[in-house]
């Protein structure tokens, strides 16, 4: 009998406690943040969308190598001597840029926001920004191109380098031929006296043959 009344007392008492708590909460300030209008201050080192400052990029490919999901894709073309990369040819820290970056894409559909690409960068040109709203309707929209050269310009640079290197190769080949001819002459002269340095004479024509298909 005592337990019976104790149950009644306990249920009434506990219900009163609960109801007083909810009643008190009715007059407290709501904690809702109405997101698109109200925004929280993001933490200082939050990791969101990457950005590449192409003014400073030297095309060293270290970020692409560090990426665990290979979402960074870099294509570079060597610079012809005398040509200036970008506007000044040097980074803001004074490093010389020796490569045209014809393609620098980051696929944010793959990116896992681990920030591993940021640390190896020698010029600190790739970093995380506070942009986190970049959803798109198509997957192509997540493929970000950072290179400041258009595809046409890139093609042009590649062509220029190909021509330049072809010229260089021709020169090299000529020089090699001359050198081979000289050596052959010397060897003939030497062969009369002693048999020496035959492998060197053989190697020169080999080089010429392997480098020829590259030029075409």
């Amino acid at each position, binding site marked *: 009998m005592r337990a019976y009344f104790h*149950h009644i007392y306990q249920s009434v008492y506990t219900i009163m406690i609960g109801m007083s708590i*909810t*009643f008190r909460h009715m007059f407290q300030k709501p904690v*809702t943040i109405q997101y698109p209008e109200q925004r929280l201050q993001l933490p200082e080192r939050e990791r969101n969308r990457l950005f590449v400052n192409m003014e400073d990029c030297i095309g060293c490919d270290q970020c692409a190598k560090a990426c665990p999901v290979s979402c960074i894709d870099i294509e570079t073309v060597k610079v012809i001597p005398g040509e200036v990369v970008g506007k000044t040819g040097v980074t803001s820290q004074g490093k010389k840029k020796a490569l045209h970056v014809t393609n620098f894409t980051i696929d944010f559909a793959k990116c896992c926001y681990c920030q591993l690409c940021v640390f190896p960068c020698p010029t600190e040109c790739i970093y995380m920004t506070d942009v986190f709203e970049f959803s798109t309707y198509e997957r192509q929209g997540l493929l970000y191109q950072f290179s400041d050269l258009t595809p046409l310009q890139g093609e042009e640079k590649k062509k220029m380098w190909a021509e330049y290197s072809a010229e260089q190769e021709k020169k090299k080949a000529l020089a090699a031929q001359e050198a081979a001819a000289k050596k052959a002459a010397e060897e003939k002269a030497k062969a009369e006296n002693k048999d020496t340095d035959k492998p060197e004479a053989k190697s020169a024509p080999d080089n010429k043959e392997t480098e020829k298909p590259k030029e075409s």
Partner: protein
Amino acid sequence: MENIFTQWFGDNILAYILIPIPVLIWVSLFALYAVLAERKISAWMQNRIGPNRTDKYGLLQTILDAVKLLQKEIVSPYRTDTIWYNMAPFIVFTAVFLGYAILPFSSVFISADLNIGLFYFFSITSISVVGVLMAGWSSNNKYSLFGGMRTVAQIVSYEIPTALSALVVVMLTGTLSMQKYALIQEGGIFNWYIFGGPGDITKIILIPIMFVSMAILFISTLAESNRTPFDLTEADSELVAGVHIEYSGMRFAMFFFAEYAEMFAVSGVITTLFLGGWQSPFGDLIPFLNGPVMQVFWFLAKSLSLVFVQIWVRWTLPRVRIDQLMTMCWKYLIPITLVNVFLVGIYMLIFN
């Protein structure tokens, strides 16, 4: 007390057609804004803001929800009992709405002042059980059937404490007419039946009995209108939504409509029985506050504060289990109400 419509239009068919219209308008408005109030109050209790996109305060939210539900397709699942399935939500709502006939909104407006008003209310609103069971059984869904069966078990057992706790007032007044309950409790807040009703100093004995009776009436009507903590019939986490599962569009809305209409109806009955009905709490001290229009205000204010308590309870207490529900009804509420009836009987023997 004659009805205002029969006074204006005479005792003909037109008056009887017009009588339910203001009540129906009130029920629709109440259902719309009670849903909004429920969402807003629950939001405040959980330190949220609640709907505020449709307007500065979200006042259009439920209207737009209703428009959305009207546009939706009415899907009926394979192999339902089509007739009963389609009829059920309307039976539920009709049963609840018929209960409004005896609610005394003021001294001149009561749809039907029956001499068996209270009895009529308890019997007609329990017809909604039939509708709920019909919906559960005809849906061709196990969860629906479970929900329907639970509802029947719950409502049938809670009919008893409801009737017994109302019986206390019936014994003291000696009538079943709703208008008479309100008339008897005239003369200020201390003549309401929660404070023992009108009478001499000996009514002090009745005050604790009346408090307990009103609390039990509130609890058991809460169970009858299937509100949390007694919403075993809906039980979102176990039965998905009970009888609501297979309903869509406006038929689904009818169930909600009925639930909110019943909330107000039972609050109106508790108000009439224990809180003085349409009587002003100041009695005749300020006659203006007890005029026919202000009476409507008092009735609505009292009933709506009870509705607020129902919402408050819903967002505070967790759902009870089926065994706890039955334990509460048969082991606690019914014995206590029986003792109450017994004590009131002894009081009447001694002092009347």
